[in-house]
């Protein structure tokens, strides 16, 4: 972790969407090591990947369009940090995040958004990111957003080979695009497999190894979120988190009990494995 999340990491991106494919083994390790995140970038819908870092008080700024737990409720760490002004929220919409990652991956200096999106209140509260630009092909002003170039991205994939070629087990959400846009990528996988197994996957479902700095084999590493192709979300555990993290003492209890009180290996053996995070394949 020290090798990747260095002091000059200005922008850390965490993959996963809602309670799916959150790279929690990597995120928990950030919390265990108490590393500050200067600016955190999420997929259009973050969940525990961002909220645990916020609950631990490690985030200075967050770029996101959503942090929550969907049908399970609001995000306690995000709420407390934003309402208490302990994090700076750089709120975006999904278009700014997705097209911004495209611009980042493609080296575009900026990217304009479709006309009409400027009538939401989002651009007004984030004028650093949403700026007017003259459309050189039409007599109008449109709104543009900057490229998103994470210094480091944490992404979960189902499998990777020793060279870092990784494959998704279900939806890739914006995680694949995040990997294409980031300067360095650490991929957390359920298992490292022989290269022949990766080679059969079609274009559009893989991350090529030349973009990947490190592969971390972390079976059950998405727990309590789902790992597409491996296991479903552990909603009981997520509910326990939501209940505890609502209050500062409960949040401290959760962190001690599940994160800082032991290693990721211990978490794997005592929390993830009993919850069934290995074995059962779900999905197509």
């Amino acid at each position, binding site marked *: 972790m020290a090798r990747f999340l260095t002091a000059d990491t200005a922008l850390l991106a965490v993959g996963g969407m809602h309670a799916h494919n959150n790279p929690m083994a990597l995120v928990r390790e950030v919390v265990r090591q108490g590393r500050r995140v200067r600016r955190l970038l999420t997929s259009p819908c973050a969940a525990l990947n961002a909220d645990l870092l916020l609950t631990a008080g490690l985030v200075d700024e967050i770029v996101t369009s959503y942090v929550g737990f969907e049908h399970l409720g609001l995000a306690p760490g995000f709420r407390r940090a934003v309402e208490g002004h302990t994090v700076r929220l750089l709120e975006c919409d999904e278009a700014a995040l997705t097209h911004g990652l495209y611009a980042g991956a493609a080296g575009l200096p900026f990217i304009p958004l479709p006309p009409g999106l400027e009538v939401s209140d989002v651009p007004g509260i984030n004028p650093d990111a949403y700026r007017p630009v003259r459309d050189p092909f039409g007599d109008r002003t449109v709104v543009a957003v900057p490229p998103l170039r994470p210094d480091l991205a944490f992404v979960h994939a189902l499998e990777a080979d020793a060279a870092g070629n990784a494959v998704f087990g279900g939806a890739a959400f*914006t995680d694949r695009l995040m990997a294409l846009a980031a300067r360095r990528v650490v991929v957390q996988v359920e298992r490292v497999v022989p290269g022949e197994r990766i080679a059969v996957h079609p274009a559009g479902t893989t991350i090529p190894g030349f973009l990947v700095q490190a592969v971390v084999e972390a079976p059950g590493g998405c727990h309590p979120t789902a790992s597409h192709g491996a296991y479903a979300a552990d909603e009981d555990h997520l509910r326990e988190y939501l209940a505890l993290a609502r209050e500062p003492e409960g949040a401290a209890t959760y962190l001690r009990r599940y994160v800082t009180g032991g290693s990721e290996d211990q978490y794997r053996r005592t929390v993830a494995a009993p919850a069934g995070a290995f074995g059962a394949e779900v999905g197509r």
Partner: protein
Amino acid sequence: MTAGATVTAPGSGEPRPWTPGELMAAELSRHLHDGEVAVMGTAAAVPQAACRLAQLTHAPDFWYVAGGTCGVNPHLAPLGSSCCDVGLLRADTALTLPDVVMLEGRGDVFDIFFAGGLQIDAYGNCNLAAVGPWQQPTLRGPGGVGLPFLARVRRVLLYTMSHTPRTFVERVDFRSGPGFLGGPAEWAAAALTGGGPQLVVTPLCTMAFDPVSLRMGLRSLHPGVDLDQVRHRTGFELWVPDPLPVTPPPSAEELTVLRQLDPRGILGGL
């Protein structure tokens, strides 16, 4: 509200009354038509069920994309709670999330966007960001994700499980997704390509928008709901048609299909 039509639970012989979630799915499905393409986002069990129900009954050539996972016409085998379930790839085909974000911006692909919010106002604007001032929120919501794309879709269908004065407010504190903005003047000036909100379905009633004032009013009361109850639980003045119809309850066929899609009873638990 009281539950109306019943269906016999398979293998039990006991009739089970319909639930608000099932009624809402059935009601929404009736507004979906062959050839249309719908998209939806977070916490979308009700619209997913509505879409699949429409496909399996009156609109076999209706299309829907479950944003998040981005399955196209997911088979809901079975219906799940999260828009990112891997099971949504059990579908006719699939897109990627960046594809769907692209196509939402194209503005001529998706006919329908299902949306909701912590707050929904009299002009159909939605707020998922913050109750109170954005800078000093009394309640920080999760955020609006793709709701700004409501500006570019042919019609917006709103739904919420929460029909309260806190949800239905005269004016949202923050506009995550546009409805008819501040009303006719602002709406006309914005000259958006989208058609704006069309329908609002809650556990109490179905609401629509007046074509002139662009304000929300009643379209029908759900069975067993009375007008005062709705007025009491809505934070602004609703227009009321005369006569005021009752929303048809789910038919036996609709309920049978919904319960086949939803053996876990997710719609019942909402």
